[in-house]
């Protein structure tokens, strides 16, 4: 962990409104007393009941002053080697994709528009290979008799604790106007992470969401900086990259979505800037691919440090509802990706990683709905195969934007992707009766190709239904 110097801590302190409020009180309290000790402050804080606030403020500043470093090495060794393998695999895919685009240019009739380096199915297939690897290396003498697709020995939270954590969502009701106004004022005046998280956990009025996110990511006073950085990146976009072509192809899918077609251009611009943004490497919480340089490949990883994958556009799309300014959209997307979504594409044993999320879902479904779990396995459409798309893309495209943004609120509120576990379980429970009637994979496909409408609150309720 890097430490900020005292000056920086003081700067951060001064940036928060609470600091000035407390300072004012302290000034009034001590009047013109010259020497003040720590004990005096403590006593005074106790006397005017600002002790809690003071502690919160100081811990907030401390938290902020520690800079998170990108996770490069995993504590489980075989995951580190797997990550290298995964990167190698993607380099191979890249070559194939490149070859295909070349062929397409020569032969106009063969227009395979679905070109991508990898998608969620590839990712799941790769994760599945772990089972054998690990059992070979670590548990040679132990016979696994699990029905689960993924059964790897990584530290996991108990699934009950996750279910308990989000149970409060069941009791949420629509708020009255006066309460909404109160929350609005709270967001306007609040600066502390913990308090903002609390608001996000419960209810965020539509009009205030952007402000809350900006404050949480500490962008609220940096609009000009954001704008300048974005303008720089936009200039760089004039140099065409091979990846741009892939992003354009990716954008076609989002252009077919009723809710997001309007933003096709903004999304593409954001992504083009994203793969050119050098700061991502420093800010991203986990390294997605090990940046091995292969000599015989024509391309290298983009500056951002990872390959653009299929449907990357989906992560930007809902954010377009938050602001009309493209630099704000970009800044929010970047932060969301670097803090959270990166885990959905990383080979890691972290709690937020796709591996852990998948295993949690399998655990919950197999214990709470064993019949469904078994049935899906029998008909060749495993639980994970079924919800992988929803999980990896946070239900974007499956729910309307307001519901997606509620998911984003929850992610911020708990600083975690665990809400996706709840929603995936709810999703499976919702379609359980239909799924149990399905006789093969095609039937399952048919169920989900029908017109359907999933809602956040509804899925949460289904998740807790026995």
């Amino acid at each position, binding site marked *: 962990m890097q430490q900020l110097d005292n000056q920086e801590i003081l700067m951060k302190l001064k940036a928060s409104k609470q600091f000035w409020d407390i300072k004012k009180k302290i000034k009034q309290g001590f009047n013109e007393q010259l020497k003040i000790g720590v004990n005096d402050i403590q006593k005074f804080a106790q006397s005017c009941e600002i002790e809690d606030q003071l502690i919160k403020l100081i811990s907030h500043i401390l938290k902020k002053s520690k800079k998170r470093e990108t996770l490069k090495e995993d504590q489980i060794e075989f995951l580190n080697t797997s990550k290298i393998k995964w990167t190698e695999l993607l380099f191979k895919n890249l070559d194939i994709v490149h070859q295909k685009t070349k062929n397409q240019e020569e032969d106009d009739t063969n227009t395979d528009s679905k070109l991508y380096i990898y998608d969620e199915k590839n990712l799941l297939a790769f994760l599945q290979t772990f089972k054998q690897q690990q059992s070979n290396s670590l548990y040679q003498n132990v016979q696994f008799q699990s029905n689960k697709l993924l059964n790897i020995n990584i530290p996991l939270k108990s699934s009950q604790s996750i279910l308990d954590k989000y149970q409060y969502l069941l009791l949420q009701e629509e708020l*009255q*106007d006066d309460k*909404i106004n109160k929350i609005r004022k709270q967001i306007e005046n609040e600066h502390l992470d913990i308090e903002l998280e609390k608001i996000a956990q419960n209810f965020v*009025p*539509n*009009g205030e*969401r*952007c402000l809350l996110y900006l404050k949480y990511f500490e962008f609220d006073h940096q609009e000009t900086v954001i704008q300048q950085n974005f303008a720089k990146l936009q200039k760089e976009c004039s140099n065409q990259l091979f990846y741009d072509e892939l992003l354009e192809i990716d954008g076609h899918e989002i*252009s*077919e979505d*009723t*809710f997001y*077609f*309007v*933003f*096709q*251009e*903004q999304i593409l611009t954001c992504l083009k800037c994203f793969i050119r943004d050098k700061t991502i490497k420093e800010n991203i919480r986990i390294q997605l691919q090990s940046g091995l340089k292969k000599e015989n490949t024509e391309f290298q990883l983009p500056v951002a440090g990872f390959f653009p994958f299929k449907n990357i556009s989906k992560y930007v799309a809902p954010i*377009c*509802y*938050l*602001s*009309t300014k493209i630099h704000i959209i970009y800044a929010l997307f970047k932060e969301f990706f670097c803090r959270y979504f990166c885990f959905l594409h990383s080979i890691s044993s972290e709690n937020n990683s796709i591996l852990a999320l998948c295993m949690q879902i399998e655990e919950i479904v197999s214990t709470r709905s064993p019949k469904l779990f078994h049935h899906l396995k029998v008909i060749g459409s495993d639980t994970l195969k079924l919800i992988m798309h929803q999980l990896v893309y946070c239900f974007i495209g499956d729910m*309307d*934007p*307001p519901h997606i943004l509620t998911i984003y609120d929850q992610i911020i509120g708990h600083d975690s992707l665990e809400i996706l576990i709840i929603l995936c379980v709810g999703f499976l429970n919702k379609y359980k009766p239909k799924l149990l009637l399905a006789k093969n994979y095609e039937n399952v496909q048919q169920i989900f190709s029908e*017109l359907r409408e999933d809602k956040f609150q509804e899925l949460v309720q289904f998740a807790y239904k026995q």
Partner: protein
Amino acid sequence: MSEYFRKYIKKEHYANHYTNLKFKTSFRNCILEAFKRRLWKETDGDDWDIMWAEKEWIHEVMDHTHLQPNQKINHFRNHYELTRKDLMIKNLKRYKKNLEREGKQEDANNYNFYPLTFHLPSEYPIFFEEFKRQSQNGDTKTAWIMKPIGKSQGKGIFIFNKIQQISQWKNTLRYNQDNPQAEAYIVQKYLADPLLIGGKKFDMRIYLLCTSYQPLTLYLYRTGFARFTHHRYDNEDITNTYVHLTNVAIQKTSDNYDEKLGGKWNLQTLKLYLMAKYGQEKVAETFYNIQMLMIRSLQAVQKIIINDKHCFELYGFDILLDAQLKPWLLEVNASPSMTSNTPIDFELKCGLLDDVFTIIDLEKVLTGNEEQIGGFDLICKGAPIKLPINSTFTTYLGAFNNRQQQLKKIAKSTAIRLAQTYQETQTKAIEIGSKGQKEKEEKDKQMRSSSKGPQAMQNGVNGSNKPNNLSKQNTIMKRNTTNLPALGAVQNKSNIKRQPLQNAGQQQQQLQQSQSNSSKKNNPNEDSMLSANQKLQKLTQESKINQFQPYKQQSQYNDVMGMGSRNLQKNEE
């Protein structure tokens, strides 16, 4: 009929049962589907109860046709006063002037929601003056839009900013005030700063249902659309119609038009988006202004449109928001498109039409005082309806469309109310029956001997209350069933299906019964609607069927009800 109404309301309680209703339409899109979903029957003849006609039919046929009291049609006779571009502007201008003359300056100022418009060729000189004035002010960028009056779907529309650009148009049509052949156009100042989303221009299609002009009764549908152009907006390039015109018909011809997509958002999505930039209050104000704009447009023509209880009209308002979120009225469509390009669109339009039919209430089950029916909210009845001060909303336009839940609720309460009135009428009948029993018996005898009209047969021969009660039931059934054979067939089947729900309804009914007339023994629970059919059969067989008038329909009815022709023969004898 919305499925919930069919579910909860018992057949006997309908004033006019849905299986008796007939519709006529030449449309083969959502309209037909919506009709069919209500289980109404299609007819080609003149025996329709509701007709979804084309505008031309109204102009050509309606004036020469006498409509039956129960018949409903989807246009007012002179709807064009509002829905033809030139007349709408004329009426709005006139109404504004009248208000000014009456000294209602404040009200008059509210009529500022249409762009500066002139009728061509008749107002060409004034337009030319205005054009020159704007040019002299150095406002050379002002663009004007020409729209042919009689055409729709964006046909014949073009934009210009130099007077020479319409000289060709002038020559071909030999501009002359007296030339009757000159195609009439309106020319409007083009709104150059529309609100753009994702760099694209859009307009809104909002649905308003008018069921009466006296008093002005308006229902506003919560869901509408924002229709986007497929190209980025460019104020400089006025020749590219794809950029400027949002009509689906125009956009469909664009190279990159995507069938699946339709280029539409619903209003809820638009509202969500706008809130991010302008905040909740500003957006709420805008949507309220849109609602008021629509009410004001209708008020302007209220005295001009010929009110007719046979008519209702579903208007499609085209509204544009400018960059300051001010709504502008582009035009009002009398036949908004009811074709759909996506499954969601299809469901939305079918739902919309279903709610229209529920409001029209051919089944006569509603009170007429409902403030929300499906996705429609009553916004004006004589005067604009004000929502309670503590309400979260200033308008429900663009609010969550809870039509399913609302229909369920309204169907339940209607079912209870109808059951109650049904019970009351029955009780009254019983009271009358026992009071004037003797007199009626005598009358009855006389009637039977002279075998006169069916009313005389209403009262049972039997002295007891029960048959009396049942005979009343029979007459109600009879009144409800002008189309007897089909009813008999459907009724038997659906009665079996609806059993559990009817039981639920029955319980409520029982409760009310025990509260209101617990002392009346003549109203036993066994009179439940569930067994009404069986009882009817039993009774008609037991108690001489010749009590009922043996008209043709009755004989068909008996055939279906399995009573055979033996009884009939008896009657005829």
